[in-house]
């Protein structure tokens, strides 16, 4: 479904990604792990067209999209829930969600809105509140809900559990499973290594601009290198 | 003797900015005069040297005007002409005085221009005091002739140096001449809307409205008075930007009808004036006071240079100061400068009658009789 070959990207002279290769198959949950600042978010943003790659190819649904405009990429169903939420603080919760279907699935807006509100009842209580005044965790829910409003084929989640309470984290992971079960392919970037590997089919580990490790999640959990680097065990 | 081929005259006119129209008009007047002089052989005492006009755009700002004065005096101009607005005229003439170049003011009306005693600063036209006195004389005469129908007056004026100056003089003088000033309404330039002034005038019912504004505001004001059917016996403006502008009369004839204006104006009876008017028509230049004054000033300067027989600035300055130049188009007698101010200068009072601007006062220049009060249809 998504193929990344020899991807290079960075900020000006700063090279962050140096030749990534990655394959995502339809229906998978793939975890991307890595220490702080290795470039996970950079990878996401490059996939979504927010950063122009300096080299390599991205093939999505059989088409090259490296360097394509973000709105085109979104329209084709590759959607991300970004790091730092990036919600619209001056719009109401409802309007934020509605804009989730700005490019896609506008027709199913009402139905999708209902679904999102079932998943995140807290948002339902706050539909008319200015999104900027939501608590940190609530904003995270909103960002996730907004991503779902576009009926993604591939949903990239950049640290969706950030700032959520343990109970909400559990619910979030449960939700990811459910969305996946409904046919949405998922790329999950997480610091919460144990739980992400718990739900992921496969995982990639990013180090020094390349994937140092990859493989089935179950296998990686037990990998001593991973344990040492991420869990400090 | 090696004679210079040209004599440079610096024109300090606002070619851009708020007063760009006035600057363009002023330039047209100076240009016409210079062309005529050059065609007739230039400055004879300098071996037929031609007059070369050098434009310094004041951009309607004093700083720019001063910079242009400096620049042009270094470029060797023999004399300056211009100023237009009082603020620009005051600063520009000062800079010229510092450089020792004579400065002829065209239209600034502030009496400070010559009142500061700067050497080499002249004004050919009349200032505030002269204009207002003349205006009052005319007003009284016209009113008396009609049997004194008008007793009350409202002044409407732009709030800069020129309009405020007029209004201040008039407000002080009108009561002495038997008129009651009901109100004095200042408005900014630009003013977006004159409806309120129209309403206020209609409510106050003055016999006479006396406006002093720039062209655009004048036009809006006249339209507003007309539209609100303010029941006035006469509109008598003092340096009204619009009343003596043919464009306004063509385009808003109904609103312009019977408006009187005491302003810089030519003596229409002089043969030279008739030639002047014709020449302007050929050049498709509106006949406005900026054109007239600049034309007249240019002739005066040329005459002074002719008499000085030199491009030396001090000599030209002296020649201007002692000028008795007569062959101009204005309704002035022979020129006589005292402290830089031409003593013979005086305005004319005109009135819009049908499609024409007629001079109605002073009597010796008049081309028509005043129609006052406004006939009620």
């Amino acid at each position, binding site marked *: 479904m998504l193929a990344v070959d020899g991807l290079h990207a960075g900020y000006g002279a700063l090279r962050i990604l140096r030749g990534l290769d990655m394959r995502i198959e339809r229906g998978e949950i793939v975890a991307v792990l890595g220490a702080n600042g290795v470039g996970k978010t950079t990878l996401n943003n490059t996939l979504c067209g927010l950063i122009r790659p300096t080299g390599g190819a991205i093939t999505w649904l059989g088409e090259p999209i490296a360097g394509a405009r973000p709105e085109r990429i979104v329209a084709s169903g590759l959607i991300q829930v970004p790091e730092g939420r990036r919600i619209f603080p001056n719009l109401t919760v409802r309007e934020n969600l509605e804009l989730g279907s700005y490019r896609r699935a506008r027709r199913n807006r009402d139905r999708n809105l209902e679904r999102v509100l079932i998943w995140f009842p807290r948002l339902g209580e706050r539909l008319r509140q200015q999104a900027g005044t939501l608590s940190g965790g609530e904003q995270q829910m909103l960002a996730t809900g907004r991503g779902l409003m576009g009926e993604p084929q591939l949903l990239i989640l950049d640290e969706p559990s950030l700032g959520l309470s343990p109970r909400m984290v559990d619910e979030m992971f449960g939700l990811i499973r459910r969305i996946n079960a409904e046919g949405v392919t998922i790329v999950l970037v997480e610091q919460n290594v144990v739980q992400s590997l718990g739900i992921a089919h496969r995982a990639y580990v990013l180090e020094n601009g390349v994937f140092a490790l990859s493989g089935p999640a179950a296998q990686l959990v037990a990998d001593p290198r991973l344990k040492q680097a991420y869990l400090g065990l | 003797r090696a004679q210079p081929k040209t004599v440079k005259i610096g024109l300090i006119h606002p070619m851009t900015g708020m007063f760009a129209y006035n600057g363009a008009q002023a330039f047209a007047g100076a240009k016409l005069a210079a062309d005529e002089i050059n065609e007739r052989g230039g400055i004879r005492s300098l071996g037929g040297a031609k007059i070369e006009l050098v434009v310094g755009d004041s951009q309607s700002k004093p700083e720019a005007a001063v910079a242009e004065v400096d*620049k042009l005096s*270094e470029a060797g101009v023999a004399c300056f002409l211009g100023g237009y607005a009082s603020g620009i005229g005051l600063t520009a003439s000062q800079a010229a005085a510092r450089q020792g170049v004579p400065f002829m003011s065209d239209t600034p009306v502030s009496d400070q221009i010559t009142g500061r005693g700067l050497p080499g600063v002249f004004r050919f036209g009349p200032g505030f005091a002269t204009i207002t006195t003349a205006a009052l004389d005319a007003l009284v005469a016209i009113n008396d002739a009609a049997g004194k129908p008008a007793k009350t007056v409202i002044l409407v004026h732009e709030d800069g140096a020129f309009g405020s100056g007029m209004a201040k003089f008039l407000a002080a003088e009108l009561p002495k001449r038997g008129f009651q000033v009901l109100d004095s309404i200042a408005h*900014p330039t630009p003013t977006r809307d004159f409806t309120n002034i129209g309403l206020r005038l209609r409510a106050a019912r003055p016999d006479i409205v006396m406006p002093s504004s720039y062209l655009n505001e004048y036009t809006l004001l006249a339209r507003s008075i007309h539209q609100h059917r303010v029941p006035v016996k006469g509109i008598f403006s003092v340096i009204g930007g619009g009343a003596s502008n043919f464009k306004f009369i063509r385009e808003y004839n109904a609103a312009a009808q019977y408006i009187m204006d005491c302003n810089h104006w030519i003596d229409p009876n002089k043969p030279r004036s008739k030639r002047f008017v014709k020449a302007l028509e050929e050049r498709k230049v509106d006949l406005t006071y900026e054109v007239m004054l600049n034309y007249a000033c240019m002739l005066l300067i040329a005459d002074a240079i002719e008499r000085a027989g030199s491009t030396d600035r001090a000599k030209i300055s002296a020649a201007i100061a002692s000028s008795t130049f007569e062959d101009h188009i204005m309704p002035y007698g022979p020129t006589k400068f005292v402290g830089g101010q031409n003593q013979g200068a005086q305005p004319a009072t005109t009135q819009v009658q049908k499609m024409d601007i007629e001079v109605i006062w002073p009597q010796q220049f008049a081309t028509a009789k005043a129609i006052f009060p406004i006939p009620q249809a």
Partner: protein
Amino acid sequence: MRLRSGQAGALFVLAAFFLLLPQFVTSSYWLGLWTLTLFYALLGQSWNLLGGYGGQVSFGHAVFFGTGAYVSAVLQVKFGFNAWAGAAVAVAAGGLVGAFLGAVSFRYGLRGSYFALVTLAFAEVFRVLVNSWELTGSGFGMLIPLRPGAAHLQFTDRTWFYYLILALLAAACALVWWIERSRFGAYLVAVRENEDAAQALGIDCFRVKVVAITLSGALASVAGVFYVQYFLFVDSHIGYGPAMSVNALLAPLIGGAGTLFGPLIGAVALGALSELTTLALGKTPGVNLLAFGVLLLVILRFLPNGLMGLFRGRA
């Protein structure tokens, strides 16, 4: 922090250039242009202190400039003050207007474009007021009587005006240089970047901003005083009109806002630009300004960080 040798060298060359300039420039036109350029740089530096370092973008810097010009003019003309004394009061008045404006607008947390427009509105209020008030000469403006002599802050030899504005600008730059290296400067920049964070770190944002606007107002009124002594005339449009506000922000923005020499470099560049266009295209009115506008856009296109960006990019 001490100057690095490179900076010291540059500073020396700069100082030498400006100090010796009148030796080479004998044309009073050119000297006048340089004087005006330094005047714009001073005005720009005052804006830069508040807008560049403090991030409080003002569109109404004329309110300070005009206050300086008018107060010194009124004191001389109507109250018979000596020009120097009038100047001192005028500068204090400019600072006071700054403090007042800052106190009312910052107290209510006005920021960004709001603040910009409030300054603009204040300038307009002052403009209308001086234009209608007898004391300030109403529509006539204020004309300072000629009284040549250093005692009256009037110089027949304009070289002295040049040195005067040079000294004033140097003092303003020294002030900004000192601020850049002080705690106050660090606070000012912090307030520009993020007020919430600044507050959390113990910064009294309100005070910092009020001090900045007071200093900025005083500096701008120095420029106002200079203008009045140089041209001996001011009216409401010159003093409080939008043109001067635009002049105040143009030089630092073109040169590089929030940098010490940005305003000076910007003023020189703008002066050169307008001279060049007038020289090349001055014949038809407006065409030179048109070219000026186009070149302004070209500069922005290629130097988005202002001219100082050039130097920084290299360093």
